[in-house]
């Protein structure tokens, strides 16, 4: 979501607020992000986490691949402004493996 990593004077920051409420890791974006590139980023991010990448690698590679996804060539449409709050080494496992 646009500006989800930006600090709002009244409400603070979505990421830290999420962590304060018990979320282990959160990712947001500082800038405006365009819809089509955000969908692409989202698909690539979950694809990589599903392939056992940690959160940092999944976000980094997804962002990189978003630049290869035109239009606009070489433009991230705001996705490069991703911010991770939490432990970058975290890997996600499907819920079916949990207790």
């Amino acid at each position: 979501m646009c500006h989800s990593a930006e600090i709002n004077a009244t409400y603070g920051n979505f990421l830290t607020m999420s962590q304060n409420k018990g979320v282990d890791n959160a990712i947001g974006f500082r800038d405006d992000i365009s819809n089509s590139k955000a969908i692409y980023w989202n698909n690539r991010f979950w694809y990589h986490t599903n392939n056992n990448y940690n959160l940092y690698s999944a976000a980094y590679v997804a962002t990189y691949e978003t630049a290869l996804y035109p239009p606009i060539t070489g433009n991230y449409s705001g996705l490069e402004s991703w911010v991770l709050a939490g432990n970058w080494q975290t890997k996600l496992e499907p819920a079916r493996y949990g207790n």
Partner: protein
Amino acid sequence: MKKREIIWLIAVSVIVTTSVMAYNDFESNEKQFAGDAIEKFTNLSDIDMQLIGHLSTNLGTFEIYQSDTSFYYINSESNRVEGAIFIESPDQLKTVRLTQYDAQQKAQQFAIDHYNRFTEKNFQLINAELIDHGDGGIEYLFIWREFIQSTGTPNIVQISVNPESGKILSYIGIQRDIKVSVLPKITEDEAIEYALTCFPKLYLKRESIPAYLSVEYITPGTQSLTWTVIIKHEWIELQSISFDQMEYSNGGIVVIDAQTGKVLLKDMWR
């Protein structure tokens, strides 16, 4: 078993075996081409690498190879490395020791060493920034774009740099021949006019709206001369509802065909 059935069985076996061998040869050749491309790019030999996937975009199809913590994106058509990622731990991306100028020099040298005829083409730096990803570390990002006259081409060089060590973290180097005219029939003002029709409820100052002329791949493998119009309605306060401090952004990116004026893409902010 009758003689005819035996002959059929042998014939089918030969066809299947030949097909499997041909496929294996194809795979083996593909890997050989990729290996050669990566060795040429890295200047290293005997790299242990694995094909981990494909990426299809309008720019083309890329085969993705992984070697340890490095990833290489090879253009399936040209067998050229057009992208590389050298993953480092965010723990090594915490401190900014390099100035932007020094980081840019390192990135530019990498471009000269890895992009064919970088200095001979009209590449212009279109983006240079230090990006803080929070617990995901910090990086410098530089993007150059080739221009023909005042038209941007799809040829970009994008490099990110570790602000602490100066190591290269990622590289993109797109190389395409330009197959369309770079002279538009639609003016910048007309393009902005067409783009604004996509957001009839927004009130914007025309002079604040940027538009860029460039060759883009709107559909797979096809170049189009376009105007990209960036429409940002800066923070509207929603005073009509009780969330008086809540804000949202509106508008989006509109891509206009620079020859016909047709809206090719409307990509909203979300």
